[in-house]
C-alpha cells in the first residue's frame, strides 16, 4: 500500500538554525506532493506543493522543498528558522489525478527563542 514516511517525530532547534524535515513516499507512479503546516490552535494550511516542473519548490514564509524522484523524497527546508515556525508539519501525497491525500504522521517542530 502507498505510504508516506516522515523521519522525525519531534525536532527541536534554536532560532536561526537551519531546518530539514525528511519525507519519503512509496508510490512509484506520478505523484503530487504537499507540505501542510498546523500552527498551534490554527487550521491545517498549505505550505507548498509540487505537481510538475522545477523540482525545487518555494513556499510561504521562506520554506522550500526539493522533489528527488530517484529517492522518492520531498524534503522540506528552511535556512534559518524563527520561533514563529513552531508548528506541526505534515507531508502528503496524491497519486496522479486522484484527489485522496495520504499523509505522513507529522513532525513537530519546536523552535527555542
Amino acid at each position, binding site marked *: 500500500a502507498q505510504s508516506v514516511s*516522515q523521519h522525525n*517525530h519531534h525536532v527541536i532547534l534554536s532560532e536561526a538554525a537551519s531546518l530539514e524535515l525528511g519525507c519519503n513516499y512509496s508510490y512509484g507512479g506520478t505523484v*503530487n506532493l*504537499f507540505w*501542510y503546516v498546523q500552527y498551534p490552535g490554527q*487550521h*491545517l*494550511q*498549505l505550505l507548498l*506543493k509540487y*505537481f510538475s516542473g522545477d523540482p525545487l519548490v518555494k513556499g510561504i514564509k521562506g520554506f522550500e522543498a526539493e522533489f528527488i524522484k530517484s529517492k522518492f523524497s520531498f524534503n522540506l527546508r528552511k535556512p534559518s528558522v524563527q520561533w514563529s515556525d513552531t508548528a506541526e508539519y*505534515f507531508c*502528503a501525497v*496524491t497519486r496522479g*489525478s*486522484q*484527489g*485522496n*491525500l*495520504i*499523509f*505522513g*504522521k*507529522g513532525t513537530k517542530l519546536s523552535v527555542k527563542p
Partner: protein
Amino acid sequence: SQTIHQWPATLVQPVGSPLSLECTVEGTSNPNLYWYRQAAGRGLQLLFYSVGIGQISSEVPQNLSASRPQDRQFILSSKKLLLSDSGFYLCAWTGSNTDTQYFGPGTRLTVL
C-alpha cells in the same frame, strides 16, 4: 472567496451516544469533500470522501458513516460512539480540477 466551516468546534460525548458533525463549504460548487481524523502521533487518516451529492466512499471500515445531503454539506455520523472515536476531525474540500485540499478548523471530539 471560498470558506469552509465545521461545527461544533469541541464536543464531549458519552460512550454509546450518537454523533453528528457538520461541514459546509461556501464560495464554490460541486467540491470534492473529505473527512479526516487526526490522532496524536498518527498523522491524518482519511475516513470518507465524496465527489458529489449522495456519493460517499469509505476508506477505513469503522464505527462511523458519512452523508452528503447537499452539494456543499458533508456530515459525519455515528449511531453509537466508542472510546476509540475520540480525536480531532477535519473536513477538507478541493475543486474538481485541483489536487490541493483546503481544511476546515476541525472538531475536537472526546468520548468518555
